[in-house]
């Protein structure tokens, strides 16, 4: 009767939008990129939108450079997103707190080196084999520190120039409690560049700033207690999406699918800070169609990345 003990194909994930690597001082252990990739592979997560924790906590420029450098060093090739996913067979179609965890380097010569390794592939690093484990493709995510956003436009230009399509904001750990001038500025500049925003924190706090811009937003910290508010916003904002991570009630995912459709949900595990199985099991047992499950497990993110290229 213990079916849940064994991972099933309905738990396989095409895109995980919420993954980090690097030190996190308040966490008992740190996870380097290799450890994170191995964990993702064991959990049958095929692609991850990922960035260094350094950009959230210490230096956005150094963190962005670290992300691109680390990802470039994991593979020597960088095929276009759509092609690489098509090559990966049926699963590629989706077959199957107050801040993290809870929930360019400026255009210098070093940046130029990074650009050469990663940029041509639309920011996508090819999956690779890992000692018998399934391959994991990595998609670099950039960030801008909202505590010092004066030079954000230049930073965003550098990220876009390096093929980075997604910008993650860390309002929780950076103490941004509402719509500050820096927050509004960065959001405006990112949306103007067509970047997908990965937004932490309470969606009620940031939804109004993000609305009415045609923004593509993924809320990373939607708690099931706030689902009613999210749905009220999402009905009029087709670009608003949320991860299923904290939609833990027996009908949370189902209610989003019934109300606004599966296209406004994506999978984001917050690896390495959260257990993955609770989230994949909830998706597996959700009373939704296989097609909707495939969209949530990666189809939506795949389409969004292709659109952003």
């Amino acid at each position, binding site marked *: 009767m213990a079916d849940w003990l064994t991972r099933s194909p309905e738990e396989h994930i095409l895109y995980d939008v919420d993954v980090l690597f690097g030190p996190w001082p308040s966490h008992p252990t740190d996870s380097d990129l290799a450890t994170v990739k191995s964990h993702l592979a064991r959990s049958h997560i095929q692609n991850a939108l990922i960035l260094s924790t350094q950009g959230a906590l210490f230096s956005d420029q150094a963190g962005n450079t670290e992300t691109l450098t680390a990802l470039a060093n994991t593979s020597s090739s960088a095929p276009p997103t759509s092609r690489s996913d098509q090559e990966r067979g049926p699963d590629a179609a989706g077959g199957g707190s107050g801040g993290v965890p809870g929930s360019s380097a400026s255009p210098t010569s070093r940046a130029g080196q990074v650009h050469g390794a990663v940029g041509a592939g639309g920011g996508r690093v090819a999956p690779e084999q890992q000692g018998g484990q399934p391959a994991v493709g990595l998609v670099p995510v950039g960030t801008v520190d909202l505590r010092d956003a004066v030079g954000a436009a230049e930073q965003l230009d550098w990220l876009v120039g390096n093929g980075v399509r997604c910008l993650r904001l860390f309002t929780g750990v950076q103490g941004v409690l509402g719509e500050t001038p820096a927050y509004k500025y960065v959001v405006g500049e990112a949306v103007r560049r067509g970047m997908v925003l990965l937004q932490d924190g309470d969606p009620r706090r940031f939804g109004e700033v993000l609305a009415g811009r045609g923004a593509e937003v993924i809320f990373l910290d939607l708690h099931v207690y706030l689902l009613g508010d999210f749905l009220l916003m999402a009905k009029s904002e087709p670009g608003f999406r949320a991860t299923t991570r904290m939609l833990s009630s027996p009908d949370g995912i189902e209610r989003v699918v019934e109300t606004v459709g599966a296209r406004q949900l994506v999978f984001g595990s917050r690896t390495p800070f959260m*257990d993955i199985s609770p989230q994949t099991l909830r998706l597996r*047992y959700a009373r939704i169609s296989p097609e909707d499950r495939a969209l949530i497990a990666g189809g939506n993110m795949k389409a969004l990345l292709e659109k952003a290229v």
Partner: protein
Amino acid sequence: MRIIDVHAHWGPWPFHMEVGDVALNLELMDRYGIELQIVSAAEAVVYDAVAGNAKLAEVLQEQPRLHGYAVVNANRLERSAQDLRDCLSTGRFVGAKIHTTYPGVPIGSPLMADTFDMLDEVGVPLLLHTWGTDVSLLPEMLENRPNLKVIAGHAGGDAWREAARAAVECDRIYLEHCRTVTDAGRITFARSVGVPMEQFLFGTDSTLIDPCISLGVIRDAGFTPEELEQVLATNASRLFGL
């Protein structure tokens, strides 16, 4: 594999969800192979303890796979103590439940100390909502209350490291890890600091939370088959006599 869920609920919650029908408790139990569930009434937790307990008592008469916690409100101790005894006398309730947030009574409150005195006298297990570093106060609070056994519901929430250390200090503190935010490594950490296997229990917060969330935590914890049996059923069976 036998599974006993020591932290569950019956009834509706004031959030955007429809989870109040007892049929859903049973549907989810069947789906995941949960044999028995110990539930408290959501209404008793967030609103009126006595009224909620009374409604749960009626439900329990028809549901042999469910057992009850009587919710105790420390702000109304005399009334709640009598209500607890009345509930236990039905034979369908097996413990007490205290939430700290809704009644606004933290673990270190004098009201909680008085309530612990009462529970020590009654002698049934207590499921205590723990969420924060005040879980560290529990070992000292249990020192002179030898009959009281406390399940640290949510294992301290954000303060899961403090909860683990509390369980090391006192063998009458049990860890139960249900929570929407499934911080990685909580069980591994608890084991690493020396929490004995006998002090882990399985709870879900169902039907507020789908049981698969806690089952996923268990799956990721990497227990051996023998340990799984202990955590999922044997420890609870021994604690509650089920």
